[in-house]
């Protein structure tokens, strides 16, 4: 009986021991980059939402939000390797650059404005949470649509001009710049 009591006491204390705390996870991340942004486009868009689809909700809600996005495009120099820079002779250098891509996408909160909202019936006002969700839809839409603009071709043109000048300052007379084919026209 005494033994059982001792075992039970030991088990009791061990079962109640405090769990070891997992180390605090670092949220931040530091990464090395090498993106040469050569063009910046400022896009504007009106986000219109008509929240009147559900038949059982009494009343409608409409909202118009204007947004602006600053998008930079250029080339990622970290994707280059040794074979991509070839000095043909003392006067000529040949470069093969990675395909231009979107290197940054920013939507400054100061450039976001609710232009109009109309709420009737028994509907509630648009909450800030809902507005953020509308903005997220807008962001996705801008990221998709900007692929149709000339941002990448402008980035390619400007990268060529900048790097030609850069190498000419180093004494080269002929700078040949080619671009690798685009892997994916995604947005960062």
């Amino acid at each position, binding site marked *: 009986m005494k033994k059982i009591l001792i075992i039970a006491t030991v088990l009791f204390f061990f079962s109640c021991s405090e769990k070891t705390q997992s180390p605090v996870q670092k*949220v*931040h*991340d*530091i*990464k*090395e*980059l*090498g993106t*040469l942004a050569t*063009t*910046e*486009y*400022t896009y*504007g868009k*009106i986000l*219109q*939402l008509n*929240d009147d*689809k559900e038949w*059982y*909700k*009494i009343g409608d809600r409409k909202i118009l939000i204007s947004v602006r996005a600053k998008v930079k495009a*250029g080339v990622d*120099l*970290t994707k*280059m390797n040794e074979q991509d*820079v070839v*000095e043909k002779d003392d006067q000529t*250098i040949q*470069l093969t650059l990675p395909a231009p891509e979107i290197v*940054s*996408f*920013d*939507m*400054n*909160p*100061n450039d*976001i404005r*609710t232009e109009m909202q109309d709420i009737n019936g028994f*509907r*509630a*006002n648009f*909450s*800030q*949470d*809902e507005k*953020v*969700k*509308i*903005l997220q839809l*807008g*962001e996705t839409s801008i990221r998709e*649509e900007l692929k149709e*603009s000339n941002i990448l071709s402008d980035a390619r043109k*400007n990268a060529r001009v900048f*790097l030609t000048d*850069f190498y000419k*300052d*180093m*004494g080269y007379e002929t700078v040949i710049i080619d671009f690798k084919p685009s892997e994916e026209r995604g947005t960062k």
Partner: protein
Amino acid sequence: MARNSKTELVRLVINMSIIAGLVVLALFLIRRCTADEDGEWELENHPLRVENIRKIAELSTVSYTDEVVSDSIEYYEDFGEQFAGNVSKLADLESWKYAVRGSAIKRRLTLIVGGEVRYGFDLKDTTFRVTYSGDTVFVQTAAPKILDVIVVPSKTTIFQEHGQWQDNARIQLQQKARLILAVRSGKMELEQKSKQQLESLLKKLLADKRKLIVTYR
């Protein structure tokens, strides 16, 4: 007699259950018809306009990403206001849960903002100059600086929204988060990392036999 009272009790329980069920159903219907959930929202199609095009030459060398909690809180000024405020919240389907414990918080908006700070060099800056002498290339540039502080809606979450808030409150919190991100990145000594990365990138752009000397102004 005892049997009769037992039947009465059963009937009372059944009736109470039916009433409770009806109340729950009514509350559910009211909530369903008035509460607004984003559901399957779809934006109407408006074209994307290009407002401005700028030729730039910015070399981003280091990126710092982090998450910031940005919070705005307003308290009741006195007990009278707190009491009246909590009573009025009890009648509100969205806010009653905040009033049950008689909270001193009038309203609160908390955001979790994920963002990115990019350090690098503005190569359009007048200080940027490339010269050469023999096999040595001299690059002169300004010190690294913050090129972008990026905050986008897809990385923004409203953690708590208690009470009514205007857009400018949310915008202020997002701006505060941008500022915090920039300050935090400043403590990471990213300038040195930025310089190292610049030199490594420039070496990559040079043909093998050339030497590189970078100076910062």
